[in-house]
């Protein structure tokens, strides 16, 4: 959103780049509008807290996906990974913060290692992360064969936190997105990552190792995955390795809705946040609208198509 509100008058090219996120933002506003006409309570602080809270882990996971898509990779294991983090949170972290913290760090390291191997062995990230998703799932089931456990008190307290006059879920969404924006869009690490997605040869010629960029990106994605898992655990109060399995494709869709692309090179943290909230709200709209059970998934698909089609139309107009 900061991009959209940039003080300088945006040029045509610049507008073209931020148009997708703008369309998604419009869709988001439209959806909130629909929700609040159907259910006026939505616009209250409590209502916003209710409808937004479920989108927090999704938005953070979308940031992880966005980071990898910026280097031109794609992560088909993020859903299982977030699930694994909830499991670790509900078992190790609650029994011993030190051990739990170390395990979570280890998971981030595992992500970095995955990036390292993907780079060195020159394998497609799509299939490598797909393979890794089985590993995350297996580890999760190994730690906690049946969903359960309990999250540490402080985390549960955060999940239940309801400040007056301010929808609590907005805080982590804005905070994480701003951080990712600083890292991936403003900072030099972000330049390295996007350069890798854009033109790895240029990166190598400048004496920067593409390997480092990729590992940084994967470590960042792993870190964001951990945060997403913590956020999810704070809301579900326990661990369940398959609780976030839908995130895998949802996060990809969120990044696309936010203006990202599969070809790498662009980082769209605010767009991904908007896309994530939009997608998260689709199920809210569905439950507010009286849609027949068997039509609900069609409506969901239709909304996604409509938003993207709108984005394409705007893009055509700006061209």
């Amino acid at each position, binding site marked *: 959103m900061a991009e959209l509100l940039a003080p300088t008058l945006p040029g045509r090219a610049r507008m073209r780049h931020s148009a997708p996120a703008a369309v998604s933002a419009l869709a988001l506003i439209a959806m909130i509008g629909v929700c609040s006409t159907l259910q006026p309570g939505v616009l209250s602080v409590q209502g916003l807290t209710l409808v937004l809270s479920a989108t927090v882990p999704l938005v953070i996971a979308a940031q992880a996906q966005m980071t990898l898509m910026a280097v*031109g990779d794609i992560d088909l294991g993020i859903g299982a990974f977030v699930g694994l983090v909830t499991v670790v949170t509900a078992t190790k972290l609650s029994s011993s913060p030190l051990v739990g913290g170390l395990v979570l760090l280890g998971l981030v390291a595992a992500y970095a290692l995955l990036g390292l191997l993907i780079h060195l*062995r020159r*394998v497609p990230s799509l299939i490598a992360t797909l393979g890794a998703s089985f*590993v995350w*799932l297996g*580890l999760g089931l190994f730690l906690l064969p049946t969903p359960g456990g309990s999250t540490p008190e402080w985390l549960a307290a955060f999940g239940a936190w309801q400040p007056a006059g301010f929808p609590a879920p907005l805080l982590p969404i804005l905070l994480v997105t701003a951080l990712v924006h600083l890292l991936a869009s403003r900072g030099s690490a972000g330049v390295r990552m996007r350069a890798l997605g854009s033109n790895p*040869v240029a990166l190598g010629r400048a004496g920067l190792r593409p390997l480092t960029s990729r590992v940084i990106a994967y470590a960042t994605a792993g870190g964001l995955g951990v945060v997403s898992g913590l956020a999810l655990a704070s809301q579900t109060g326990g661990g369940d390795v398959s609780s976030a399995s839908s995130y895998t494709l949802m996060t990809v869709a969120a990044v696309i809705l936010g203006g990202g692309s*599969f070809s790498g090179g662009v980082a769209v943290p605010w767009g991904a946040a908007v896309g994530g909230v939009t997608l998260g709200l689709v199920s809210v709209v569905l439950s507010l609208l009286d849609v027949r059970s068997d039509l609900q998934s069609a409506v969901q*698909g239709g909304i996604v*198509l409509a938003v993207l089609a709108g984005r394409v139309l705007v893009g055509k107009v700006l061209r």
Partner: protein
Amino acid sequence: MNLRVTRSRPWIWGFAAAALIWLVILAISGQGGGQTLSLALSLAPYLVIVGLGQMLVVTAGPGNIDVSVAPVISLAGFASVAVSAGTGSALAGVLAGIGVGLVVAVVSTVAILGLAIPPIIATLAAGLVASSVTLHLAGGFTAVPDPGLRELLNLRPLGVPALAVAIAALTWLTVVLLRRTVYGRSLIAVGQNRRAAERAGVPVSRVIATAYLLSGALAGLTGALLATYIAPSADLGTRYLLDSVAVVVIGGTLISGGRAVPVGVWGAALFFILLDGLVNLVGWSTAAQNLLKGGLVLFVLFLAGGGDRARSTAPRLRRRPRPAAATTTTTGDNSDG
């Protein structure tokens, strides 16, 4: 294993892994090696059919993927069983399944080519619509699969499943399609460099649309056969989404497009099916199953390695060229011209 050989014959890895698993099964159970293979061959064709369709889509270039195969299989299952029970003709049922696949593919194709929506999202959305229809159909469903066709699917003269032979022939046809027809060459050209193919006079949109339609039709065929072989159900296809992508890539097809390896789909499909058999035989927990499956996929993947960094990283919409020999040298001029 000689790396040079595996580089030029990328399908070897799938078969090698399948053979390895088969030997392990043989060592553990100490019996029925031939029958293990025979039963694996009676399950593999379903995965191969949908895999071939997925392979064509993946070959069409970076970013192309069909994630609607799972809902299409489920939907085609119901549709084909309903039609074959209604008309009394198994053939009509199979054709109905294929038709359903085509219809869903038309939706995806319009979204991809007409609205320029990224394929993964377009097919996801088309799949959601398909699963709505599936749920609708499943509600009052009364038909039962055609017993004649089921017999046919279970036919195993001399221990070789008839379906496997038929699908082997289909695979061979796919090879011919890719090597000997103008369409196949056009598809591979589009997959390598869409812009260049367009400038070379290839009708790019038509070629890509055809790939999605073929994938839809093949997924529909899978659904029709699978519903007869097992039974129509709303989650009949669920498992086939990830597996279809995985077998394509393990089979040696480039995920970034431009190289299709139909034979490899068989090797990878056999690998997956034998692996499931092994895991069930040993009675490992689900945790161990998943760890083993993921570990083996990663192991094979990292051992086999990839080609060019520039070409192998994930789906890319080739908006611009990556210098072909990026890692070693700089070839050509004005790559960003």
